[in-house]
């Protein structure tokens, strides 16, 4: 932590701050500049509330150098975490594509979609069984029956499975069927849910909240990791901006930023970010080119008839074409598909 004193702070202002820090057992490195005096604070500064010092006379600002997130930070672990889900490695050399319908509707829809995405090269099958819908009157999902279909389709086409968990009571029932539990954007700061997920030993895919900063997102992952579950995959899915043409604005820059700050795998979901099928493919290409460890894409065997999010779901043919394009881009960034 660094405390920058005001231009005209007096010697007694500075002495007061140094005395307070020393009394609390911190080492202070004083540097008297021609205008500002800067105090470097050394020790376990996590225990300090910066506001206390900001309010002291003569203090201009208090800057935290160390990040508030620990377990997810690169400082804590230099080498990248590789999350393993049913033999699929996320965060390793391979770029992993997760694809499937927004919602599990019926056996035919899920198996047909699974067959097509597996053939095109997807490694993980996505499908929602509990759906957080904006309207309480919209289809709420098939529940456990849907998860059984997801498992069966995954087994048949050799795909790992990912599905969203909405609340603590669903966790146990999902474990037999799901290889990766997804926390949706709306639940990113549902700290009770995150803590409960920290107690299990299964990979968690943590989506970024639509208004969450990168720091808040990493702190959310900290809730899971501090419980002992280190298998966390981060997923960028677009943030709220002033732009209304797209549903959300995909924050591509989050991919290299996360890669620098954290050792956790980072993937992105272009489908929810843009909300329109015709824009999903270019974004998917950009995500992979930016260095993401994977993609989460909505594919439906018959999007026109989809119960949920049809307009953002790719046709299987489009998905196959996208995978062909990605096979050209991925080697250019030193990865494999």
């Amino acid at each position, binding site marked *: 932590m660094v405390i920058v004193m005001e231009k005209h702070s007096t010697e007694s202002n500075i*002495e007061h701050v*140094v005395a307070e820090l020393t*009394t609390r057992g911190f*080492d*202070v*490195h*004083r*540097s008297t500049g021609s205008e500002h005096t800067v105090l470097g604070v050394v020790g376990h500064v996590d225990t300090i509330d910066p506001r206390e010092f900001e309010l002291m006379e003569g203090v201009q600002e208090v800057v935290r150098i160390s990040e508030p997130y620990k377990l997810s930070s690169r400082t804590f672990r230099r080498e990248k975490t590789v999350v393993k889900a049913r033999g699929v490695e996320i965060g390793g050399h391979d770029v992993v594509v997760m694809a499937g319908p927004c919602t599990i509707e019926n056996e035919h829809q899920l198996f047909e979609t699974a067959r097509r995405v597996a053939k095109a090269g997807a490694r993980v099958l996505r499908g929602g069984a509990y759906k957080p819908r904006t309207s309480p009157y919209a289809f709420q999902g098939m529940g456990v029956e849907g998860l059984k279909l997801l498992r069966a389709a995954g087994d048949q086409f050799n795909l790992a499975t990912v599905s969203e968990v909405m609340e603590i009571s669903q966790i146990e029932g999902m474990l037999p069927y799901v290889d990766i539990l997804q926390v949706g954007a709306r639940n990113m700061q549902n700290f009770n849910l995150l803590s409960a997920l920290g107690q299990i030993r299964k990979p968690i895919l943590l989506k970024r909240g639509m208004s969450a900063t990168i720091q808040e997102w990493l702190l959310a992952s900290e809730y899971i990791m501090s419980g002992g579950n280190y298998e966390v995959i981060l997923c960028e899915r677009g943030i709220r901006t002033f732009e209304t043409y797209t549903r959300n604005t995909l924050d591509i820059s989050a991919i290299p930023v996360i890669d620098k700050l954290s050792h956790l795998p980072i993937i992105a979901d272009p489908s929810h970010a843009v909300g329109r099928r015709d824009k999903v493919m270019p974004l998917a290409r950009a995500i992979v080119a930016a260095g993401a460890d994977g993609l989460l894409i909505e594919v439906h065997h018959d999007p026109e008839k989809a119960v949920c999010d049809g307009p953002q779901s790719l046709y299987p043919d489009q998905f196959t074409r996208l995978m062909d394009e990605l096979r050209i881009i991925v080697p250019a960034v030193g990865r494999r598909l």
Partner: protein
Amino acid sequence: MVDRDDAENDLTRLRDAIDRVDEVLVRLLNQRAKYAVEIGELKGHLGLPIYAPDREKQVLQHVEATSAGPLETAAMRRLFERIIDETRRVEREASSHQ
């Protein structure tokens, strides 16, 4: 024109001289730290605060008055601020072992 070989010899000679000065500086800094350990123990014994701003001011004024250059007063002050920072730490550790 200075001969290139001469200049290179001078550079080596001056760098050696700096190394020898550093050796003396290190010895003196450690001697200074030993006094600080004793002061820290005394402060711990007497229950006095480690941070003594008036004394730090005295030290800096004394150093500035003693310095004849070519290091500027401000530069000398900055160097001694760091020495004092480390001394404070040494004193704190010595006092807490009391």
